[in-house]
């Protein structure tokens, strides 16, 4: 089976390629990238002027909710949302029910992913059994089963000692430890960024330092262990400073930022819909200075990846008092439009940098194939339509859940097609 992507601009930073090329896909792999390739029996997909042919996007922070919370999302609905959002691959967090802390659950998720046959799914295993922070999970078995990283996401890795051992052990296996950075005592029962708006609205606050203290700890421990730590959903400017300092002295620390943290601030809580639980996530929407710092870090290269922290919740769970509702929003289907609209079209980053943040670097962080259109590599390709005007509609999301604050937003930039292993799994051409 052959597919020819004809015309358009190929942006492939991993191979320092940016220009007008055709891409020929054969047997699930990139066969050739070149000028004026002949169709030669291949099915032809005409790339329209202005569209971008990029290596398949990879979201390394997604909650697929299966097993155990299928009313929020399943591997099938989650990967349908992924490919509709341009993601050819997602890495899924272990805070399912039960927690993914052993190989049987990883195998179950991979089986579901194979049945769904949409995006590739890379399970991330729990650092500790039940993510309870007490006993190290069988990371070796989990890696063999298919886990690409370890985290106790939803919570930080509980103690410095456990984090040290996890880093040392995962380092031996050649995989990173991903940490949800927050000091539990400083976070307390906080529900919003600590500042004027939390005070004004009477919501318990979570200071930026609750995050950065843990980032500082993790950078120090990665240095001690000589291993790779990845900071999940970074939101506070103090954390960015800690990552920057760590990188400057050669520590293996990488980090990701979620689209809502470069788009929104805590001011939104006092907006037209007050106490909208679709603005409740952890870490919380922070101050304008934090938001600006995240954009700066994205632009200057300190931030390695953009990851959505896609966190589906059922409407009944979100229609609660603000302090009782669960944290999190869905993000797979709005990430690309938000990156285009808020970062690319505003001139903060180039399209090349966008592809690094959404494809090249995510592949490197979790050491998976992808992030490249090199000949011979798996044919995961995303076709982007940078100038497509769209109005976000929560109603028409592919995800099983609708919890997001972007409903009705008018954004410029979208996805024309997603190709996984040479198969067109999503097309909006």
């Amino acid at each position: 089976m052959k597919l020819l992507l004809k015309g358009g601009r190929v942006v492939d930073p991993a191979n320092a390629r940016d220009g007008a090329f055709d891409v020929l896909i054969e047997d699930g792999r990139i066969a050739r990238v070149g000028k004026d390739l002949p169709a030669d029996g291949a099915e032809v997909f005409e790339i329209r002027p202005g569209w971008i042919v990029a290596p398949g996007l990879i979201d390394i922070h997604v909650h697929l909710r299966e097993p155990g919370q299928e009313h929020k999302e399943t591997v099938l609905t989650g990967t349908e949302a992924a490919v509709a959002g341009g993601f050819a691959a997602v890495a899924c967090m272990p805070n399912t029910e039960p927690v993914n802390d052993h190989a049987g659950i990883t195998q179950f998720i991979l089986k579901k992913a194979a049945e769904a046959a949409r995006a590739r799914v890379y399970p991330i295993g729990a650092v500790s059994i039940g993510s309870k922070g007490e006993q190290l999970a069988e990371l070796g078995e989990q890696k063999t089963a298919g886990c690409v990283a370890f985290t106790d996401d939803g919570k930080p890795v509980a103690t410095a000692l456990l984090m040290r051992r996890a880093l040392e052990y995962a380092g031996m296996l050649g995989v990173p430890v991903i940490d949800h950075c927050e000091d539990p005592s400083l976070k307390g029962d906080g529900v919003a960024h600590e500042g004027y708006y939390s005070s004004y609205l009477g919501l318990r606050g979570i200071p930026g330092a609750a995050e950065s203290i843990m980032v500082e700890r993790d950078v120090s421990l990665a240095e001690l262990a000589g291993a790779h730590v990845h900071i999940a959903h970074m939101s506070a400017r103090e954390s960015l400073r800690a990552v920057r300092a760590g990188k400057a002295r050669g520590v293996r620390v990488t980090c990701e930022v979620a689209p809502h943290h470069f788009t929104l601030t805590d001011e939104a809580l006092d907006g037209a819909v007050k106490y909208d639980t679709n603005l409740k996530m952890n870490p919380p929407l922070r101050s304008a200075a934090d938001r600006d710092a995240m954009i700066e870090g994205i632009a200057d290269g300190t931030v390695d990846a953009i990851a959505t922290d896609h966190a589906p919740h059922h409407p009944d769970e979100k229609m609660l008092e603000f302090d009782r509702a669960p944290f999190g929003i869905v993000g797979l289907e709005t990430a690309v439009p938000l990156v285009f609209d808020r970062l690319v079209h505003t001139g903060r980053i180039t399209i090349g940098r966008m592809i690094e943040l959404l494809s090249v670097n995510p592949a490197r962080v979790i050491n998976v194939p992808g992030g490249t259109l090199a000949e011979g590599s798996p044919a995961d390709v995303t076709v982007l339509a940078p100038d497509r005007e769209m109005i976000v509609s929560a109603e028409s999301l592919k995800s099983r859940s609708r919890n997001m604050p972007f409903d009705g937003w008018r954004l410029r930039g979208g996805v024309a097609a997603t190709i996984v292993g040479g198969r067109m799994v999503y097309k909006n051409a």
Partner: protein
Amino acid sequence: MTTQATEAAAAATLTSRHLLGIAGMTADEIGLVLDTAIAMKEIGGRAIKKVPTLRGRTIVNLFFEPSTRTRTSFEIAEKRLSADTLSIAAATSSVTKGESLLDTVRNIEAMSPDMIVMRHASSGAPHLLARTCRSAIVNAGDGMHEHPTQALLDAFTIREHKGRLAGLKVAIIGDLLHSRVLRSNVILLNTMGAEVWACGPSTLMPPGIGGFGVRATTSVDEAVEGADVVMMLRIQHERMHGHFIPSVREYFTLFGLTPERARRARSDVIIMHPGPMNRGVEIDSEVADGPYSVILEQVSNGVAVRMAVLYLLAGRDIDVERGEG
């Protein structure tokens, strides 16, 4: 119609069909409530303290937090206006286990109440109801957010004594961080042109208080100096657990309103407290029971002000078609 007449007509009603907070109320609207409360207070002085204004209206008092004082005040206000009332004390713990807030309220709404007066431990809970329910919602205190009828009765009491709100120095002292009384009072007093000082320990100072439009200080002496009004906030004993204060004893030493401290205020100062009071913690009994204390007046004015609020919200319903606003 002259411009004046148009303005008079506009000020004769409230814009919103709910009272969710002082935030969003104009000075005219606040003035309207306070003026209406004067007439309501007169009713309370009669031998027969009852008018038929809200006859046939059903008001549900839904209290998710225990509050004898506010609930009783609303109940008396409703009865004096001849409304049919029902008070439900819903334990917060049972809500956690079972029904959601919206389901509880939908069940109540199936019985077609006109108004729901709600006290809830979660900030923003009344806003959630206002978005989803048919009834008019009156916020009787939501979490650490607002307690609008308290601020209105405080303003009424101040106006009775001082004849005005504009230009007064009002010192609010205590647990600023957790106080909905603070937030509602600050917004109201700022709207009416008073000069507000907020004083409390640094640990109980709301982050970003600079944005509140108050003079913030940790010195009681500075706050009280030359004040026309001193408003004490309750300090809860639980605050010792979050490392906010070392002990109530030390709190009283540093922040309690003693006769000596009170003397720094203007000679005609009034001393207020929203209750319930902790004598010997935030306020010395000698001050609480002294000649400048208007604490019991606040309680009786509470009924008049709540009557005014209920009357104006219901009156809005009488004149205006349902569903607007």
